[in-house]
């Protein structure tokens, strides 16, 4: 048994608490992508014919596309043929019936990550659909959810067991034609989560998934689909860590949310994948497409994200506000230091009448980090009395970092109202002095001030997550000042 | 009490905002020269009533009627009501960026004169009038040079309302919580202004939450509003009793 001292030692050695590699035999495809690989992938996952057809169509479309480079990020060219498109832990082949059957090394990994898989889950009331590499290996609480009528399973299972729902909604919010990475994902997605909340049901617990990238050169292509029927409510938490590796790892997930009449979906993310070393070597490329549609009247989607990890983050969780009186929200904290680059923000498309959106974005740049907010607010002609308020603040720590703000505002309805505010400044010297005079160290003072800066966003997170996020932020900014 | 014909007559007035009923059958008679105080807890509908009288379009009158100077008031637009002598001193006077206060006062005054078939006032004549009015109210001309209410303190905004009232000489002035947010000195100055404007031909409705304004402006009647209706009417002693016992004294009695 490892003691807690060993774990502490691990952290000290790696300089990154989640940066270790689990030694498990993996069933991995050779690197490369062509039609044969996609057929093999689909066959391995025992998918129905319709899914293979979708994958091939997406793949063909992807081949006609160019990788986008409009973001304010820089990275070496990605060789898509050097990536392996499938990897599953061997012990996952004949899925475990209970936790006892799970590979002990795997459980050990989760323990190291601090994922409360057994008792803690019960206490926290959290169901965990843990994805290790690409295949779900442990799912709990499904019975309890089943009683409420909530479907919470891997997308692979949903493809087999709920083909009508999948065919109706998969790709309906993010079609494979949407962008380069969405097309790639549609062709090769490995696994992910499926949630269906039936009419009028308030999901009895927060749903959460921990993702983990393992296996060198393994692309991770998660696919998440959440459907909230009329008058239902669901809160979904997503958190990620990754082990330390030298090669850059590509992550191109797609998340689709569908909220029908009076439904509410709350989607929270804490992302702390490996950011690379001080020179930026080895971090994750996080190119994600997340989009939700408020399809029904009075529906409500909110995105909350705390992004501290990855070498490059490129994501714009967005809302299509189609239903009248629907609401879209985006709350974000993004931290970049070392050589990290983040280009993140949101798009709010106001289509229905009296739709409202709120954007709160807090960017923190330290060392040589580059942080860009990129957002679009569009009020269509029919968006009568639509409202948007955007607040976008950047905090600079150190003289080598950068913060950019790229808001796009398009208004085609005169009764709509849009307000956008943004500020950029360094930590206020007077605040620092005040804290230090009261006996706080520089680091403590910075942590305190930064926490205050991010408070509006943290307030939107479920409580356990908020605590974790605060801690994460402190760790992320250790040594940034001075 | 003077026996004169009714200036304002409100009958069974019901009004709502965003489909939410606020006024639920309000009755009120105001005769020339009378001062009526309307008191009541927050949310009882006092400000709604003031805005309905002035013609705010967010408020929908669903039943009842209002007669003013023998006319159906609800048929008149906001500005027509102003032309006919209805003046609302706003609880929260809005800031109008870029519009000079002096230009605004002159434009408004001339709009009223034109509506009454009078000639517009020339710039020098207007200056003379405003100097005189300021002197009477013991105000200085600082506020005239700035944009309407922009950057004014709470007291300055309320004083600007009283200045307008003095300038426009209305028949019916509705003072919506004019005392709120004022310190003792500002309150005294506002009350002084209002008292100067007391006139046998001018009626006033004072909407207020507290009794303290009524120490300096003595009303003929005090009405208590609760849940969109006037539930009690008396003289100024009613206000003192309210101060003593609180609104629950009346609202509880109503509920009982």
């Amino acid at each position: 048994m490892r003691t807690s001292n060993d774990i502490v030692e691990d952290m000290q050695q790696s300089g990154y608490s989640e940066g270790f590699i689990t030694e498990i035999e993996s069933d991995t495809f050779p690197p490369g992508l062509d039609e044969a690989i996609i057929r093999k992938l689909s066959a391995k996952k025992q998918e129905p014919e319709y899914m293979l057809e979708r994958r091939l169509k997406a793949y063909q479309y992807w081949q006609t596309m160019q990788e986008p480079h409009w973001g304010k990020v820089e990275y070496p060219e990605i060789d898509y043929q050097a990536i392996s498109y499938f990897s599953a832990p061997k012990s996952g082949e004949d899925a475990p019936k209970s936790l006892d059957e799970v590979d002990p090394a795997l459980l050990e990994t989760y323990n190291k990550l601090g994922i409360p898989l057994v008792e803690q889950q019960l206490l926290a009331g959290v169901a965990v659909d843990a994805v290790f590499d690409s295949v779900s290996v442990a799912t709990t609480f499904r019975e309890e959810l089943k009683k409420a009528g909530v479907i919470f399973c891997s997308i692979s299972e949903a493809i087999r067991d709920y083909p009508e729902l999948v065919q109706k909604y998969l790709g309906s919010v993010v079609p494979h034609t949407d962008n380069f990475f969405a097309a790639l994902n549609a062709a090769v997605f490995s696994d992910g989560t499926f949630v269906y909340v039936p009419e009028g049901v308030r999901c009895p617990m927060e749903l959460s998934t921990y993702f983990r990238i393992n296996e060198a050169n393994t692309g991770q292509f998660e696919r998440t689909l959440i459907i909230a029927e009329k008058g239902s409510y669901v809160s979904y938490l997503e958190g990620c860590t990754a082990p330390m590796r030298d090669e850059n790892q590509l992550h191109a997930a797609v998340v689709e949310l569908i909220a029908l009449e009076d439904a509410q979906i709350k989607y929270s993310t804490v992302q702390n994948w490996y950011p690379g070393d001080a020179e930026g070597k080895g971090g994750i490329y996080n190119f994600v497409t997340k989009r939700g549609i408020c399809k029904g009247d009075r529906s409500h989607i909110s995105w909350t994200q705390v992004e501290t990890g990855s070498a490059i983050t490129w994501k714009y969780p967005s809302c299509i506000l189609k239903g009248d009186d629907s609401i879209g929200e985006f709350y974000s904290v993004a931290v970049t230091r070392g050589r990290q680059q983040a280009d993140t923000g949101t798009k709010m498309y106001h289509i229905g009448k009296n739709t409202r959106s709120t954007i709160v974005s807090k960017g923190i740049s330290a060392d040589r980090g580059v942080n860009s907010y990129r957002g679009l607010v569009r009020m269509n002609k029919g968006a009568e009395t639509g409202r948007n308020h955007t607040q976008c603040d950047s905090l600079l720590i150190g003289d080598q970092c950068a913060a950019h703000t790229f808001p796009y505002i398009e208004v085609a309805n005169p009764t709509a109202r849009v307000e956008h505010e943004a500020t950029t400044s360094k930590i206020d010297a007077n605040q620092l002095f005040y804290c230090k005079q009261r006996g706080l160290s520089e680091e403590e003072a910075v942590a305190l001030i930064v926490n205050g800066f991010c408070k509006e966003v943290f307030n939107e997170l479920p409580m356990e997550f908020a605590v974790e996020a605060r801690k994460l932020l402190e760790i992320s900014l250790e040594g940034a000042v001075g | 009490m003077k026996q004169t014909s009714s200036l304002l007559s409100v009958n069974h007035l019901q009004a709502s905002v965003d489909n939410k009923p606020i006024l639920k059958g309000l009755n009120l008679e105001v005769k020339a020269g009378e001062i009526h105080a309307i008191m009541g807890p927050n949310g009882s509908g006092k400000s709604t009533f003031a805005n309905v009288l002035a013609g705010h379009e967010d408020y929908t009158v669903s039943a009842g009627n209002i007669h003013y100077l023998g006319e159906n008031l609800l048929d008149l637009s906001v500005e027509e009501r102003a032309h006919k002598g209805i003046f609302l001193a706003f609880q929260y006077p809005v800031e109008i960026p870029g519009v000079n206060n002096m230009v605004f006062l002159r434009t408004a005054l001339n709009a009223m004169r034109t509506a009454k078939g009078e000639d517009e006032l020339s710039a020098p004549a207007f200056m003379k009038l405003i100097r005189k009015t300021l002197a009477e109210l013991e105000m200085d001309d600082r506020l005239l040079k700035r944009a309407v209410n922009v950057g004014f303190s709470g007291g300055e905004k309320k004083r600007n309302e009283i200045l307008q009232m003095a300038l426009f000489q209305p028949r019916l002035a509705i003072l919506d919580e004019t005392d709120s947010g004022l310190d003792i000195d500002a309150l005294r100055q506002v009350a002084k202004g209002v008292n100067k404007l007391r006139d046998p031909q001018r009626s006033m409705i004072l909407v207020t939450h507290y009794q303290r304004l009524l120490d300096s402006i003595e009303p003929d009647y005090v009405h208590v509003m609760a849940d969109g209706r006037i539930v009690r009417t008396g003289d100024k002693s009613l206000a003192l009793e309210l101060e003593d016992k609180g609104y629950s004294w009346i609202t509880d009695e109503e509920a009982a």
Partner: protein
Amino acid sequence: MSDQQALLAHYRALAQRDQPVLPLQQQAQQYLQQHGFPDKKIEDWHYTALNPLLEHAFTPASAMDETLELDRHTLGDLLLGNEESYQVVVYNGAYQSQLSKTRGLPAAVQIDSLQQALAGQDQTLMAHLGKLSGEGEHLFNALNTAYLQDGVYIRVPAGCKLDKPIEILHVSLSFSGALMAQPRHLVVLEAGAEASLVEHYASLGDSLCFNNMISEVFLAEQAKLHHARLQNESRQTRHLASLYIQQQQASQYHATSIAMGGLWSRIEFHNSLDAPGAEAWHAGLYMAGNAQLNNNHLKVLHRAAGCRSREVYKGILKGQGRAVFDGLVKVDIDAQQTHAHLSNANLLLSRDAEIDTKPILEIEADDVQCSHGTTVGQIDPELLFYLRARGIPEHQARQMICLGFAGDIVETLHWPPLRDYVEGLLQQRLQHITRIG
């Protein structure tokens, strides 16, 4: 050959009509041969629909053999200062010395036709021309440079403080079809010099014109320039102006841009604060209605420490008017202690009006105070209620609110004749604002 290619061939041929004199003209010709029209894929042109520019093959006045003797009478009231300004008239892009009045100008101050100054190999001119505009930010810039002929050259020597504004009236008129005027201005203020420049763009009739102009402005140490610009051309005019401003230590640039004319307009300010302590103020008011498209581009680059800039742009959109505000404040890594504040507010007065706005901050220094704010909305109904409750008729109340909204921009016009003129124009244009149905 597609229409666009034919048009491109037309402009390329035009540019090659004359043998280039200056190296920068040769470079511009090369640029023209190698590049096409800017399109939506280029970030700076994302919202600029080009169609009205591509509907006709515009031709320079000199190539059209079009001559009309202008007299001061024809200009009517378009010249705003009588004795209160030095006056220059530019007609279809050409300097009109017989109509210009520069009497009383201090001897060392130059206000000249650019063509003449070029012919005379003026040293200051040669040292500055094309230094900011480069070989071409886009095809239309290159076209201006390649075909460079005339414009206004202004030099104010060190320490000289001009007593009166320099008023430049640009008029255009064409009888024989799609005419292109390509004035090119160069303004050099030497150390400590102070001047006020007022540019007024107007039309003598509603003829089909494309004004494609470039201005370069150099402000040396401690120099101070007030620069007002009124674009009020006729319905059929297309107006593309690229202004390049370079500022040295502790210089001050105050710009006010009023844009309300033409079918299509795009005004670009490229302002670079190159030395410590420089300050730039940009105020702008744009108004579009009646299917007008009005583009406002502002790039303020902080490249040295301790500079300040303030950008305030406001827009009023009526009818089927569309406008674009594309503002960028960029703070370089060396530009510590920068203060920059960018704001953009818009009033939409009709169902068919549209605004696209993009206020961008790019910050690479840490010790800065930067902010931006944007609003889009209609006339605040509470303001309207207040004014109506004071007896002011609804249409007049709307006009007052709109004029008030524009007020702080108009106030930055520090030459009273221009301010009064603009106020008059605004009152006229904001007379019949109706309720949004």
